[in-house]
């Protein structure tokens, strides 16, 4: 194991070094970036992406991709918000159950389309990205859930907790990260996800229930997007049919790719993804501090994804070489 860690570890160490270098560079220009407060800002920026990235990582490890997560987030947040609006008497923590449940259902539908009809996930989820967004408008009658309907206790979760006042939402996202790590590293099912992505043809011959595992990763991805949905309501205090979750998929995929998860499946770690998310969070937090216009943010995101791809390719040149050989 130590050897595996040392090999795979290189990639994570690389991202970690990038984070440190970035922080130092920004810190030289703006010393206030190197304060505990910045850490707070970054950590409050990333919980949703972190949660989404864990789900997306499972899907990508299994050699698929889920582009619909932003719309899943929006739909589950919207339905949950509507429950809060029309049934304020319902005990609010049930909202978590509802949001996660709806997310899981939508994720499962993606999985069914991918497995039963044998369609490529990229196209299926491009379709459901629109479909779920459309449904969000339809169920909500294109109306926003305003702040006043979101339970105060839910909103408070994004602001504080009894534990050093660190908001619950941060604990929740870290718990998801830890659970994903445990699941992937220490359960047989987790290893089967790696195996499936590593060699989908061999998987059934080794007794892996390919359909089951595929459905599972899509369902988990959906469920975590659902969780991100209700946390969106907590963090921002409202749910909007068009904004909520829009573009979420790109941030998440960017983070996962930067974190070193191979788009060809089978390769990638929770730690790497975690660092990928943090790096994006640092960039997002540093830009306004440096007074860089918000309009450059997308260009930087795009550039970071491309650079990550190039790094990925360099780091794994050997692997790519053998792939090229098989393909050429």
């Amino acid at each position, binding site marked *: *194991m130590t050897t595996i860690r040392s090999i795979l570890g290189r990639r994570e160490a690389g991202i970690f070094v990038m984070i440190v270098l970035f922080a130092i560079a920004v810190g030289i220009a703006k010393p206030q970036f190197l304060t505990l407060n910045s850490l707070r800002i970054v950590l409050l920026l990333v919980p949703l992406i972190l949660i989404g990235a864990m789900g997306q990582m499972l899907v990508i490890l299994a050699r698929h991709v889920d582009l619909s997560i932003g719309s899943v987030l929006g739909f589950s947040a919207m339905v949950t918000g509507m429950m809060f609006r029309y049934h304020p008497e319902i005990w609010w923590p049930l909202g978590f159950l509802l949001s996660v449940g709806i997310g899981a259902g939508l994720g499962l539908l993606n999985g069914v389309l991918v497995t039963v009809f044998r369609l490529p996930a990229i196209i299926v989820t491009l379709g459901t990205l629109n479909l779920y967004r459309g449904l969000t408008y339809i169920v909500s009658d294109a109306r926003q859930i305003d702040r006043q309907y979101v339970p105060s206790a839910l909103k408070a979760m994004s602001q504080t907790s009894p534990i050093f006042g660190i908001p619950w939402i941060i604990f929740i996202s870290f718990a998801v990260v830890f659970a994903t790590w445990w699941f992937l590293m220490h359960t047989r099912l987790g290893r089967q996800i790696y195996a499936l992505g590593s060699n989908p043809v061999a998987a059934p*011959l080794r007794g892996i229930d390919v359909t089951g595992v595929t459905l599972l990763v899509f369902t988990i991805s959906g469920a975590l997007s659902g969780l991100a949905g209700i946390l969106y309501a907590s963090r921002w205090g409202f749910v909007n049919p068009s904004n909520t979750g829009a573009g979420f998929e790109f941030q998440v995929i960017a983070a996962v790719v930067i974190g070193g998860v191979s788009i060809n499946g089978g390769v990638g770690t929770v730690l790497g993804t975690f660092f990928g998310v943090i790096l994006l969070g640092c960039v997002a937090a540093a830009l306004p501090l440096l007074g860089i216009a918000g309009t450059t943010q997308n260009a930087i995101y795009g550039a970071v994804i491309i650079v990550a791809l190039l790094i990925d390719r360099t780091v794994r040149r050997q692997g790519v070489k053998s792939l090229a050989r098989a393909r*050429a």
Partner: protein
Amino acid sequence: MPDAVPLIAARGISKQFAAIEVLRDVDLDLFPGEIHALLGENGAGKSTFAKILAGVHRPSRGTLALAGEPIELASPHAAQRRGITLIHQEPISFPDLSVAENLVLGRGDGSLLGRVPWAEMTREARRLMDLLGVRIDVTLPMRGLSIADQQMVEIARALASDSRLIIMDEPTAPLTPKEVETLFTIARRLRDEGRTIIFISHRLEEVRALCDRVTIFRDGARIETAPIEALSDADIIRLMIGRPLKEYMHKEKATIGAVALAVENLSLPGYFSDISFEVRAGEIVGLGGLVGAGRTDVARAIFGIAPAESGRVLVEGRPVTIAEPSDAIALGLAFVPEDRAVAGIFRSLSVEQNISAAVPAKIAPGGVIRRSVERALAMDAVKRLRIRLASLRQPIGELSGGNQQKAILARWLLTDPKVLILDEPTRGIDIGVKAEFYDMIGELAASGRAILLISSELPELLALCDRILVMAEGRLTADIPRAEASQEVVMSAAVPRVREAAAA
């Protein structure tokens, strides 16, 4: 033995793929404590039968009984749970997982959310690899292991599974004799513990050394089951191919001319190094070796698919640069690749499109395709090579393997090549067509073309070639004239020295 209850009793097993029956009414009893060989030509159905026993395929008809009880094997997993393990013909593995994990994955124990016992797993993996005498770090990912080591991991996995029936589908193909011997020792011990082993191989010596009984398949049917002592080699071959060997193994004499293709010090680090040889017009030069010796890589390098890093290629005496297959084609080279489905055919495109693919200039003088010209060319080729098909417009995927292979050959003959590189041209095609192929190769040489024939079938090389080159571990180890060539000479050159020494 026949009095005992068979571990496996197969009755009337048949298997259909699409409309084709590849196994027909196979009855076979396998007993505890025996090593049972399955023999048969390529495509006879050995692997299919093995896969049915291991739950990979389900029989179209017929029943299986395990120790007297009828069973249905719904999946490989189900078979595994009942103590049946298959070592696949081509090692299957998860390249991104560690060797240790590859060994353990798929063993039916424990719940899905159960904890993965990393430490225990690694220890167990080390023990198994020691047992097989393989020195590899089990915590490394599978990717990067040699084919032989991958095969050893497969074998270790089967051993570790504690199965009652272990099926080995050509396990020895990539192994050194030392490794083979270790494997045999372990196999015998397993037999003595009362387990059953099915051993599939094309090497008769191995079968004689290891097995108690043999079953011979031909064209999907079981032809014979007998103790190994009861059959001579000649008997076995006759039973396997249904006619004497001699009949199709011959070579017409061609006049050998000037050097058509020469290769000097060709190297591609990691794949092969320092390869030099030449092939003359009218000459058939064989290239033999164990699977993974690098023969295909040399051919791919010459043809410009994955060019070498150093060394020279000369065509008709002139040094040439070949960076792309199109360069090679322009110089009069042709290459029939070993893996037809991957590198040869365009499955869903029509036969005529497949045949005309390498000669765009002939069918479309100004860039615009002339269908009538294309049709005429293809029709001519179909007649000449006796390709059996329903229509030229048919997708080539609907043809049988042998006819697909003929179409690929037809494609290359249209380019009127001076040098023809054939990589395992008869792999996976049936005997009748094979004989036709041998005739055609002979004719091609006779018409003055230079032929480089890569083959893993020794009899094929011995019968057809004027000279046989042998590769091992990416190096050329022998250049044997026809007169001196024999199975032993070629084999001894094919066995890698380095690994042999290391294993000793």
